[in-house]
């Protein structure tokens, strides 16, 4: 047996060598696979992305398509956004630039990665079939969305309508915006646009609060037992703050006003007297409770979208960080460091319109797997955030309904409103905040226009929106 030993050793060597190859294969196929697949220079990433049939986004009527994906002749997915008024509410999806807005927030759902059923897991990770995303139904009302979009044409600003009972966002418009259908081609221009079209003013914006501060001050008056009939002599006198002089929003017919009348005409002086009678710490604590300067987290969104820094307005101020060299009075009267997010203000309006508690904003109401017809409702938290006591909310509701004479009462529609101006350096914003009760539905409305004292325009816009809301509710 002359070669036995050598042949056995040779066999052992070959076996060891193949075992090493097997181990190496296992390493690259399992242990190192994720690292390899996530490398930026891996063209398979793009290949996989381009084959994903991303889910559609549908309006709350269940039929109107706001965004969908189709495959072209080469099997490459193409994203399409057919409703211009919904552009700013939807965000964007691009192979080159990723996702933004709702497209980003619901990315896992739309890509079919969550919820990951056993069938999905098998199809995606074992059979490596192209991913098919889930369709999602949003709370957006197309008719209202179109109306908001039309009314805000020619302006720059934000507008949001929320169902005060459920938190469903029925309308959301941020202008200027962009066309996500042509995003790749327009990207360079859009990123250099001083109007900051990628900045969603509803979900990310922080505007100077201005006269919005009168509403929490009225709440404080109620809570502290302050007599709102207290008369202030020469209440129409301007109030001089650090860098701005505040006057009445609407010229009152007489110089001496009660606090309630001052709230009606937006005159600051009686509020200065009110502030002087309150504990500063109590005011600060109450303002902190309202969290108007913090964009609320929309239900299901992993995190608030990172804010982009705009050039001038809306002004971004770090959440809750006080500015030491601005006076307390400035802050409390809605100037200085007191900024407000439109969605947070909509929450406050919802709390006033109901029992003092605010709902969590909701944009996504149902889901269905691709190709299925039945929508599965999204389970949302029913927890509400208490902002006011129910008595205070009721009192504020009455004051807002009865004391605002600017817009005449509409038939069958009960609405409370406040239109105010806010100054931010050389810039100025006009706010409309309010609520509408019609056909059993309670809706909060917030509209803010940037860089314009458009008191009459804004009231006109608000009037149109409220009328549409009344009609819309009747149809429903």
């Amino acid at each position, binding site marked *: 047996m002359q070669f036995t030993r050598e042949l056995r050793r040779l066999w052992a060597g070959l076996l060891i060598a193949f075992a090493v190859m097997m181990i190496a294969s296992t390493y690259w196929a399992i242990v190192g696979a994720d690292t*390899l697949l996530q490398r930026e220079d891996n063209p398979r990433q793009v290949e996989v992305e381009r084959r994903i049939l991303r889910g559609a986004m549908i309006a709350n009527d269940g039929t109107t398509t706001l965004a969908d994906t189709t495959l072209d002749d080469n099997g490459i997915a193409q994203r399409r956004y057919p409703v211009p008024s919904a552009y700013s509410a939807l965000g964007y999806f691009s192979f080159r630039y990723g996702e933004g807005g709702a497209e980003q927030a619901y990315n896992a759902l739309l890509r079919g990665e969550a919820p990951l059923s056993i069938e999905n897991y098998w199809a995606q990770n074992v059979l490596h079939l192209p991913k098919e995303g889930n369709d999602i139904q949003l709370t957006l009302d197309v008719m209202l969305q179109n109306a908001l979009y039309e009314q805000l044409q020619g302006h720059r600003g934000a507008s949001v309508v929320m169902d005060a009972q459920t938190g469903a966002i029925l309308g959301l418009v941020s202008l200027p915006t962009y066309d996500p259908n042509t995003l790749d081609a327009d990207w360079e221009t859009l990123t250099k646009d001083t109007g900051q079209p990628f900045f969603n003013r509803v979900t990310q914006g922080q505007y100077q609060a201005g006269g919005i501060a009168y509403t929490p001050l009225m709440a404080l008056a109620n809570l502290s037992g302050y007599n709102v009939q207290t008369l202030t002599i020469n209440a129409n006198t301007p109030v001089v703050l650090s860098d701005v002089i505040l006057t009445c929003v609407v010229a009152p017919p007489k110089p001496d006003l009660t606090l309630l009348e001052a709230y009606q005409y937006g005159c600051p002086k009686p509020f200065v007297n009110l502030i002087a009678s309150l504990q500063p710490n109590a005011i600060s604590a109450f303002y902190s409770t309202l969290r108007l300067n913090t964009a609320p987290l929309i239900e299901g969104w992993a995190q608030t979208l990172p804010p982009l820094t705009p050039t001038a307005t809306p002004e971004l101020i770090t959440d809750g960080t006080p500015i030491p060299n601005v006076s307390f009075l400035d802050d409390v009267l809605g100037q200085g460091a007191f900024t407000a997010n439109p969605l947070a203000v909509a929450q406050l309006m919802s709390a006033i319109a109901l029992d003092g508690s605010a709902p969590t904003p909701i944009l996504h109401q149902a889901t269905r797997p691709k190709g299925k017809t039945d929508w599965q409702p999204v389970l949302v938290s029913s927890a509400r955030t208490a902002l006011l006591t129910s008595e205070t909310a009721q009192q504020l509701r009455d004051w807002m309904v009865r004391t605002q004479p600017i817009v005449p009462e509409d038939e069958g529609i009960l609405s409370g409103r406040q239109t105010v101006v806010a100054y931010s350096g050389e810039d100025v914003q006009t706010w409309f905040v309010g609520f509408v009760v019609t056909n059993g539905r309670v809706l909060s409305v917030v509209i803010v226009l940037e860089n314009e004292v458009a008191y009459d325009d804004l009231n006109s816009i608000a009037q149109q929106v409220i009328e549409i809301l009344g009609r819309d509710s009747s149809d429903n």
Partner: protein
Amino acid sequence: MTTKTLSFAPDDTAQRYGAERVLLALGFAFLLLNFWALGLLRPAVNHWQHLLAWGACAALGHVALNRFLPQRDPYFYPLTMFLSGWGLVLIDRLAPIFADRQTVWLVLSWGAMLFASCTPYLLRWLRLYRYLLLLLGIALLLSTILLGRNPSGLSGSPQLWLGIGGIFFQPSEALKVILVAFLASYLAEQYPNMRLATSAMFGNYAWLSPRLLGPILLMWGLCVVVLVWQRDLGTASLFFIVFMLLIYVASGQTWLLVGGGSLALLAGWVAYHLFSVVRLRVDIWINPWLESDGRAYQIVQSLMAVGAGGIFGQGVGQGSPTYIPVVHSDFVFSALSEEWGLLGVMAFMICLIVYLWRGLRVAMAHQERSFHALLSTGMVLLIGVQSLMILGGVLKILPLTGVTLPFLSYGGSSLLMCFVVTGILLRLSSEAN
């Protein structure tokens, strides 16, 4: 001269035929499924002629071998057909324009295998006319150096082919079989002297005898010629490794392996500093990630393909292996990994291991017939070492050497060589019984 028989006794013939038939049927089912899947993906292209050609060869070969070589090992033929059929699927998927040509080469190779296995005096001729074989090998090498071309026609690319009438053949593939046959014949005669000489080598200097050093230096010279004139690092390395291992089996001296390995490392170090192609391959082996978009693009894409395959693979036609340049040739294993996954990789490697195991069993069975044992070992080493070299290169264990993956890669010469090896192993296994 006595022989040790394989485990199959003569009366097990029916069982052996049955095993071969079952294995061929399993291979056919696998290919049918994969060609069907390819047909679904590319309905405009006709894939069935490849399967039909394969099926006809497999069936006729089985019948012919039953008639002319009834005592053969039942694993070589189905494994060879299965792996080459899998290669057909891969070529059809990766480079469909070459699929017809590869099918023609499959049929030719199959014919060559039948010729090699069924020719009664082949082994005797190989043993007796070894110097003629050596001359033929040197002539082939010289003709390639003088007349070599590259089918792509690109200037600067390796001129490793001989072409006649638009048909190209790579002589180095034939040279592999010829040199192994020569060495087996030479070592079968010299191994008793080598064992005696090496056992007392430090005493009588018999190991310096030209008889022993001659073939070593000759092989060394051939490898240098191949490397220097043809820039063919893969073939040179393969020759040297197979040769050293055969010498080891014949002489039984481990120091030869150590010395040969040291010599290879020294040659590698010199080649690294002399030849840019060697330097490039070593550099991108050590760190491919620095130049993933440049010189290391091929190996990085290859690793990405293995990673993309995961355990179960993307499915035939579903992956993106064509990002790897020349994937159908040197990197066909990466494509297999991406589309059949780790399961496919394991299946492929197990097939190869079984093939090599059966080959070494044939060698063990022939221990009283040293030429047969060494020839069988050499054939096993040709397939085994070449497979390990390319697998190691693709998996970043070794520098890339540019050799093909036996049975799977595109290339007529390579396929022909593999089938001839199988033919010789079939013949050897038959004679062992």
